[in-house]
């Protein structure tokens, strides 16, 4: 990146970050939570972008990673007394990492559509398991639990307020974004993109494509699981609905609407979708998905680069 565009980028970044920090102090409760949710879904969408946008592997399996992060956190918060924030995160990440490993194995042996369908089916497998294994997972009703306090061991322990929760989520999501950005711009990230562009050629040049794919899936799964943990923290419940493949579908929608392969795009996409849903549900009640769905289809056909791509082109004029 040139010196000038780097300055522009970082200035923009700081401005947006500042706005997000100030937001909970200014916004009414409903919108505060709404904003936090956008961040969480944005993180999920970013994790999915690693696979779809950067490595070129369409995955419908993110609901599994997300769901297991959520249930993992729930497990920690229910089984260990007193409920510990960091333990919840650890359990959640372990849960999603385990699934990610499983999916990663298949990612190296299947291409394109087969991989997409298989990941979809995996989400459903987990859905069925979670839905029917009522003793452990609470079945249809899910699990509810108390939110742990925000604590730095030994130094500080205070229950979360709506604002501090928002800032915590913001911190985690921002850190994730910066880490992912660093990774995608590193040589590793370049290889991923080269796999997306032309896998056989990347293999021919000598890269161990399979290993890269596995790492990509693990990364993607970990951050998706992290989003699940955050969601559990925010809402204090874990439910099988979030493991249903529709969640994966919506994640992919965020990616496409925002612009794949951009990291920022998916967050935008998540925000855009949630706003649309909010707006339309005021007029159409539960059937908001009809107009939103039509808009999505139109975007796939006419705006394949997503919102970000569209904005970029508009700005370049």
């Amino acid at each position, binding site marked *: 990146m040139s010196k000038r565009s780097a300055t522009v980028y970082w200035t923009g970044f700081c401005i947006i970050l500042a706005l997000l920090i100030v937001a909970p102090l200014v916004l009414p409760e409903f919108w505060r939570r709404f904003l936090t949710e956008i961040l969480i879904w944005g993180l999920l969408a970013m994790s999915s972008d690693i696979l779809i946008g950067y490595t070129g592997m369409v995955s419908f399996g993110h609901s599994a990673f997300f769901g297991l992060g959520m249930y993992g956190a729930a497990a920690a918060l229910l089984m260990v007394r007193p409920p510990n924030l960091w333990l919840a995160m650890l359990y959640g990440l372990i849960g999603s990492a385990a699934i990610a490993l499983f999916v990663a194995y298949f990612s190296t*042996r299947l291409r394109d559509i*087969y991989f997409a369908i*298989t990941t979809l089916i995996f989400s459903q497998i987990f859905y069925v398991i979670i*839905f029917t294994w009522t003793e452990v997972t609470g079945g249809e009703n899910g699990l509810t639990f108390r939110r742990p306090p925000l604590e730095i061991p030994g130094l500080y322990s205070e229950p979360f307020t709506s604002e501090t929760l928002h800032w915590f989520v913001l911190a985690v999501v921002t850190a994730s974004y910066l880490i992912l950005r660093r990774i995608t711009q590193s040589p590793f990230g370049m290889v991923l993109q080269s796999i997306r562009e032309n896998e056989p050629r990347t293999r021919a040049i000598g890269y161990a494509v399979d290993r890269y794919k596995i790492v990509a899936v693990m990364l993607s799964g970990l951050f998706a699981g992290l989003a699940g943990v955050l969601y559990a923290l925010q809402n204090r419940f874990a439910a099988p609905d979030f493991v249903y493949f529709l969640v994966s579908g919506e994640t992919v929608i965020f990616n496409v609407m925002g612009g794949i392969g951009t990291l920022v795009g998916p967050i935008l996409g998540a925000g855009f979708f949630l706003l649309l849903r909010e707006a339309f549900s005021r007029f159409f009640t539960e059937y908001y*998905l009809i107009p939103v769905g039509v808009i999505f*289809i139109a975007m*796939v056909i006419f705006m394949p680069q997503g919102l970000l791509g569209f904005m970029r082109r508009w700005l370049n004029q």
Partner: protein
Amino acid sequence: MTSVLGFFQAIPYEELLIQTVNGIVTGMILALIASGLTLIFGIMDVVNFAHGELFMFGAYMGVVVLAATGSFWLALLLATLIVALIGAALQITTLRPLLGRDPLTTILATFGISLVMQNYALWQFGPVARKIQEPFTGQFTLFHLQYPWYRVLIAALSAAIIGAFYLFLKYGTYGIWIRATTQDRVMAEAMGIPVLWVHTAVFAIGAGMAAASGVLFGPLVGVNHAMGLDWVLKAFIVVVVGGMGNLGGSIAASIFISLLEAYASIWVSPAQAVIVSFVVLILTLLFRPTGLFVPTPK
């Protein structure tokens, strides 16, 4: 010795037989749905996520026509035609513009269509399940139990429809067009075959077949907006296990998986019996990824 005898006595023979018949019935419906799906994939590389919704729409159209005319057969016929037309319209408006683009876009577009269709059905028909009355009741004695005739009819009709379609593909003029386009789209076009319209026709046929399944299956379950979801997943599993684009394979896979699930439901709940199909899929992907019923390419 007695334990071996005991084992054989413990096998629920009647249950197994009932489930065999059930499995074949479900298998034929699944085959009808999956045939359309595999054909659409084979000819235009489109993974049609909305296929389950076409099934669901067919069932609802059946409800509507049945209520208006009182005739099950008319409902079956009209639902098939109406949904075939809807399918054609969808293909022309949303899939044709995507020709030549990344296959991901067709998955996304059809996914979007499925969301819209599901919610549209929810909007128009409400969340309460509707019923399609079967054209005749009546059962026959299968060993010690009563088995409904209607279920046998479903299997027979599905088989007939698939059979008719197979004959059309093999011997009809347009059947040759479809097969040629599936094998080599470019050369088919160079031979004067209007490939774009062949695609539309195939999509419409697939949609019609899914709709027919919906009407046939309607009397067995309630017709509601979410009924497509489970079927579309199973249909995908069948298509992958049977070999994508392979008509015979998906029929064999449909029956195979449905039988296994029916047997499994003797011991576990139906919700859990579904795992059987997942296991079959995983095993297929691990050991015979081109399809269980497809000869391994030399």
